Each structure stands twice: as structure tokens, then as C-alpha cells.
């Protein structure tokens, strides 16, 4: 009797212990979330931010997995199509974002993430599906097109950042006379032609043009647009020598190695320039205007956002994390750690260059082809990137560029068809 009860007691204890152990195991087993991105170089910062988040959210374990940026869209779309997508995905903006939102891979966030109120409409529009007007991702960073200049070279020649177009050309002339390459840019890498246009053209075609062309009230044959392109031709003597063969990396190294005094590019270069040559002293100024005193328009666009997989089994936890990614607290960390311009209201960059970019953004104008015409093939970007080098080579006129771009877009854009 006594032995029997001992067995029972031991058994009971073991059972109870097992139950307890199992229970506590179930309790401490965190929800694992996968977070895919194309930002390989930013992994260290995300890991740091995520560690902080996990400390205050013991129930989740988030793994940040970056992929090669040039193949990321293919990797992500294949995974989604196979039902193997991550819980949280870094997605691009505009047309490249719609490729994921339109097939229903992403969860609409506008009724789940109240923090979206922290963002401007301009930022939210980058992650809004045009078909239903809903927002599917939390915007993460904006980019602005600026002109970089080497402060050492400028100081040495007593030059100051030019304000008007005439002053800009005079500055170029002075730099060239001194043996410097005035502007590092070349035309061999397609997208950099669009960037060159995006830096200078808005101040020539004006603030109203974007809305009018997107509404179909005018086309790219508008003299304001072709006139702006014609001014780009005046840059030719000041671009890198043999600029037709100068690609993106060559242009970057011309500026970083102080062979060129200026570089027209995006705000994403800041971190890269600093890393490549820590001794380089540089500053930025916005695209020059025609008349002194006019506001400087700077092309700006949303780089991407954070989206939730519509089919994730851990929707509550994923949405909770994405709400954190929409908070000013996260925006500040992103800005401080990665020198990104956060589109979240209330985030103030500590970096002086980023403060300047934020200042330029007060007169931001949408980067016309990316924001307005990269939704269907042939995209406006494809068309203009192909035509601009030909124009810079002197083979076609600015009017011909405008005609080709308009005709290409007209194949799917009704308002351009009858004009």
C-alpha cells in the first residue's frame, strides 16, 4: 500500500512537473517573425533596433534577413507567389510597390496602424494602391535630389554655392578654368540621366507642372518641360570628360577622389561618400533657380515602406511591430543610425547635412517619372532614361525627347492619347 502510493506520488510529481514544464515552455516560446529587406548594408542598425524592441516585447523574436538589392524584387515576389513570404517585408514605393499590393500579398494597414497619421499624404501616396486607395505599407525614408560640392575646392577658389542658373554656369566655368571637372556626372548609367534631370529640371518647368501632367492636362511635349531639358544641354561642357562613357561608379569616384568639384545626385550618397573618403569635405545645395529669390524646388520621392504579409499566421504581432516602425521613436533611431530622412512627423535629424536636406524638402516636388509614371510598361523612367543620353550626345532635340516619352506613355495612358 505504502509502495503503491509512493509510485503514485512519484508519477504524480513527474506528471505535474511535466505539465508545468510544458506550460512554461509554451509560455516562453516566442513568436518568430521574419523581416525581409534589400538593405544589406543596414543590417547592423536594424539588428540593434530590433534587439531594443524585443527587450520591451518579450513575446516576439524578429529576424532581419536582407537580400541582394538587384534581385530582391524577384526573390520576394517568388516567395509570396509560393506562399513562403516573410511576415514583414521591406517593399519599394509607387509602381514597384503595386506589383506586390495589387495581387493581394500585403495586408491593408490604414485601419490597423493609427500611427499612419504621423505621415504626410505625399509619403503615404507612395504606398497607396491606386485601385482601392488604401495604404499597404508604413513609409520608411524619403530621398531628395541635390548637388554635392567639395567645400575645400570651393574655398580655395573663393567660390560660394550658386543660387541662380547663371551663377551655376559661371561657377562651372571658374572650376573648369582651374583644371577641375566641374560636375562629375556622366551619361553611361541609365538611371543617372533621370537623376540629372531630376536635380535641375523642376526649377525650370515649375511647381505646377507635376500635377498638370499627372492629371493629363498637359504632356511631356509641353514647352516648359522641353525647355527645361534644353537647359541641360548647357551642362555638357562641364560634365566629366567623355561623359557619354562615364558610368555611375566612375562619376562617384571622380567626386570622392576630388577630381570633380560637384556631383548631382540623391541624398542616399551622403553615407557612401563619407565612407569612401573620410577626408572629403563636402556640402550640398539645391538645384539652381532662374531668378534670384525664387524658392528652390527639389525632387523628392519615397524610397519604400514596411508591409505585412496578408497571409502571416502572426498578424497581431506583425502589425504591432509595424506600428513601432511608424513611431517617432523608431524614425529618430533610423535617422540617427543610418542617416536616412524619416518621413515621420516630429523626427529631427541630428546630422547637419540631413538637416539641410530636410530644409530643402520644404520645397519638395515629386520626382516626376518615378512618382507619376512608373506604374505601367513602358514606364516614363524607362523612356526618359533611354532618350536623355541621345539628347546629351546631340543626336536628338529636347522636343524629340518630349515626343518619345509622351508617345510611349500614351500607349496605356488615356489622357495622352488625344493630344
Amino acid at each position, binding site marked *: 500500500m505504502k509502495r503503491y502510493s509512493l509510485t503514485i506520488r512519484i508519477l504524480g510529481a513527474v506528471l505535474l512537473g511535466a505539465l508545468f514544464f510544458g506550460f512554461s515552455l509554451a509560455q516562453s516560446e516566442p513568436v518568430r517573425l521574419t523581416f525581409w529587406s534589400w538593405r544589406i548594408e543596414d543590417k547592423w542598425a536594424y539588428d540593434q533596433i530590433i534587439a531594443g524592441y524585443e527587450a520591451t516585447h518579450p513575446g516576439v523574436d524578429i529576424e532581419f534577413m536582407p537580400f541582394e538589392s538587384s534581385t530582391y*524584387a524577384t526573390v520576394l515576389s517568388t516567395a509570396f507567389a509560393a506562399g513562403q513570404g516573410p511576415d514583414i517585408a521591406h517593399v519599394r514605393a509607387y509602381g514597384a510597390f503595386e506589383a506586390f499590393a495589387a495581387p493581394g500579398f500585403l495586408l491593408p494597414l490604414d485601419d490597423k496602424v493609427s500611427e499612419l497619421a504621423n505621415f504626410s499624404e505625399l509619403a503615404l501616396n507612395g504606398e497607396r494602391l491606386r485601385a482601392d486607395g488604401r495604404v499597404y505599407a508604413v513609409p520608411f525614408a524619403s530621398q531628395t535630389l541635390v548637388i554635392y560640392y567639395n567645400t575645400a575646392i570651393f574655398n580655395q577658389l573663393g567660390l560660394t554655392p550658386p543660387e541662380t542658373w547663371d551663377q551655376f554656369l559661371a561657377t562651372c566655368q571658374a572650376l573648369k578654368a582651374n583644371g577641375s571637372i566641374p560636375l562629375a556626372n556622366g551619361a553611361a548609367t*541609365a*538611371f543617372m540621366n533621370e537623376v540629372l534631370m531630376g536635380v535641375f529640371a523642376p526649377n525650370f518647368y515649375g511647381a505646377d507642372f507635376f500635377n498638370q501632367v499627372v492629371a493629363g492636362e498637359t504632356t511631356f511635349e509641353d514647352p516648359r518641360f522641353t525647355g527645361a531639358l534644353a537647359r541641360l544641354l548647357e551642362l555638357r561642357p562641364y560634365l566629366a570628360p567623355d561623359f557619354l*562613357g562615364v558610368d555611375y561608379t566612375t562619376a562617384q569616384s571622380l567626386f570622392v577622389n576630388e577630381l570633380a568639384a560637384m556631383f548631382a545626385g540623391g541624398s542616399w550618397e551622403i553615407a557612401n561618400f563619407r565612407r569612401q573618403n573620410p577626408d572629403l569635405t563636402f556640402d550640398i545645395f539645391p538645384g539652381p533657380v532662374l531668378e534670384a529669390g525664387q524658392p528652390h524646388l527639389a525632387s523628392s520621392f519615397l524610397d519604400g515602406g514596411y508591409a505585412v504579409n496578408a497571409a502571416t499566421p502572426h498578424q497581431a504581432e506583425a502589425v504591432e511591430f509595424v506600428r513601432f516602425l511608424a513611431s517617432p521613436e523608431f524614425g529618430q533611431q533610423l535617422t540617427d543610425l543610418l542617416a536616412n530622412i524619416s518621413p515621420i512627423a516630429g523626427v529631427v535629424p541630428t546630422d547637419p547635412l540631413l538637416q539641410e536636406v530636410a530644409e530643402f524638402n520644404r520645397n519638395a516636388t515629386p520626382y516626376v517619372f518615378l512618382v507619376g509614371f512608373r506604374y505601367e510598361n*513602358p514606364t516614363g523612367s*524607362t523612356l526618359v*532614361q533611354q532618350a536623355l543620353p541621345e539628347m546629351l550626345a546631340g543626336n536628338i532635340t529636347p522636343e524629340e525627347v518630349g515626343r518619345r516619352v509622351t*508617345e510611349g506613355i500614351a*500607349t496605356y495612358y488615356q489622357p495622352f492619347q488625344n493630344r
Partner: protein
Amino acid sequence: MVRHLPVLAPPAAGGFRLSRRGNRALWLAMLLVPPALFFTVFVAYPIASALVYSFYGWVGVRRTTFVGLANFQRLLGQQPFQGWTINAFWHNVIVFVILLIIQDGLALLLAILLARNPRGTRFYQAVFFLPVTLSLVIVGFQWKLFLNPIFGIVNKLLRVAGLGALAQPWLGQAETALLALILVNAWRWLGFPTMVFLAGIRAIPEEYFEAARLDGANEWQVVRHVTWPLLAPAVTIIVILTFIGSFNWFELPYVMAGVDGPPNRSTDVLGLYFYRTAFGEISAGLQEFGLGSALAVLMFSVILTVSIVWTRILRRREVELA
């Protein structure tokens, strides 16, 4: 050249023979099934699925409705796609013709010279073949640097040699970019046709040459009437391989020029055009699987048809010459 099929002995009756035949069948099956499976899964299935995909509309990577030949119609009948298709196709043709003349022609010349066993034959063989062993991506990056208009060694050498006027932004001008890529390709591949031709020439019995020379044939006549006809099988294989390589050309223009075939599509070929259409240009375009699949189907059809027709013609020529 007549190929003899092995004559199989008539099967004899008896259990032992049957089981040997059974073993033989099993053995054959073991040899044939893995490659057949491999071929089905990795070659036949993707080709068949690309064919199916090309008849559908796509939203991102989600297949939508059956659209019939609409994707083909866009590629072949609607601007700017039509212009891009024709442009890329012609560039493939140009690549093929120039490679055939420069790369394979030079290879034939080198093979004829090497077959005469000059001093250092082995050394030259190694030198000509060396680039073939290098990674194509490395070759591409290296030549891209060589041809860089500012830092590149090609323009620097031209200037040092007093030929500064010839220095060009080779990869940045529509007139020179494609030719520059073709020449780099020829530099990389030259050794391969050279070795194939050399092996072909060395396989020709020495007596034929001796007989020709005894009959008073000069060098040109020997090459024209002995070497050339007997080299026909090697020529067939090199022409077909050059054709397939030219129409599948992708890595070198991708590495050296970029996915959009700059400047102004002057280096665009069907491979780049396909990649851009199906997978999107990261900084300009969108993924379109339907259109990309249609393009893949067109490329496959052209390569397959031309290869078959050509192989037949060249094989017939081999027989006639032999």
C-alpha cells in the same frame, strides 16, 4: 562521313539470354532515367511553363486571365516594344556575324598556323586558351575598367602612343559600344574555336597533305582543298555554338554595359531585353512575366529552328565535302 550503327546480334532463345537482356534493359534504364528526369524537370518543364505563362496576363507574379497572343502582339506589333524587339534581335544577328568573322575566322587562321608546329606551339596554345579559363564576370569587369574613358588603360595607351585622337568613350557611344563588347567576347573565347579547329586539322591524315604537295599544290590550295573540306565537322559545331552563344548572349553585356543596353539600347540584345522585361529594371521598369515569357518563347523558337535547319545544311555539306 558515314556513321555505322553497331549491329546487334539476334537474341538467342533461353532463360539465361533473357535474363541477360533483362539486366541489359535495367542497366540502360539506370543510365537513361536520371538524365531524362533531370532534362524533364530542369529543361522541358520550364520551357513548357514559359509557353503557358506567355498566354496569360499577370499582376506582379500572380497569373490572371488567359490573353491569347496579346503578349506576342505587344512584343511584335506595339511600339515601343516592337522597336526594342527588332533592335535587340538585330544586335544578336550582328553579334553572330561579327563573331563568326572575327572570332572564328581568326581562330581558323591561328589553328592553321599552329598545325604547322612552329616553335613554341604549346606556349601559344596556352596563351590563346588562357582567357577561356577566366570567369566571364571578371573578364567583363576587367575590360570595363580598361575601356573606362578616364581611368582606362586603353585610352591612356592610345594617348601615350600619340593616337589621342582615337581615344573614345568606347562603351558610352552608340557607334562603338556594341563592337567593343563583341571584341571583348572574341578576346575571351578565341582560344576555344582555335583548339577545336586545331584538333580537327590534326585529325586529318598527314598523307593527304603530302599527296597534295606532291601534286604541286601551294599552301593556299592545300588549305582550300584539303584542310577546309576535311574540317567541315569542326566548322559545323563551331558555327552552331557561335550561333547559340550569340543569341543567348547575356553575361558580358550585362556586366559591361548594364541591363538596359546603354547607351540608348545600342548594346541591347534579346537576353538583356528578356531579363529586363521579366524581372524588371530596378531603377526604371516593372516586372512583366507574361511579356518576358513570350519573349523567352520567341527566343527559344528562333534558336531551335535555326539550329536544326543549319545543322542539317551543314551536315549535308560535310557529307558532300567528305
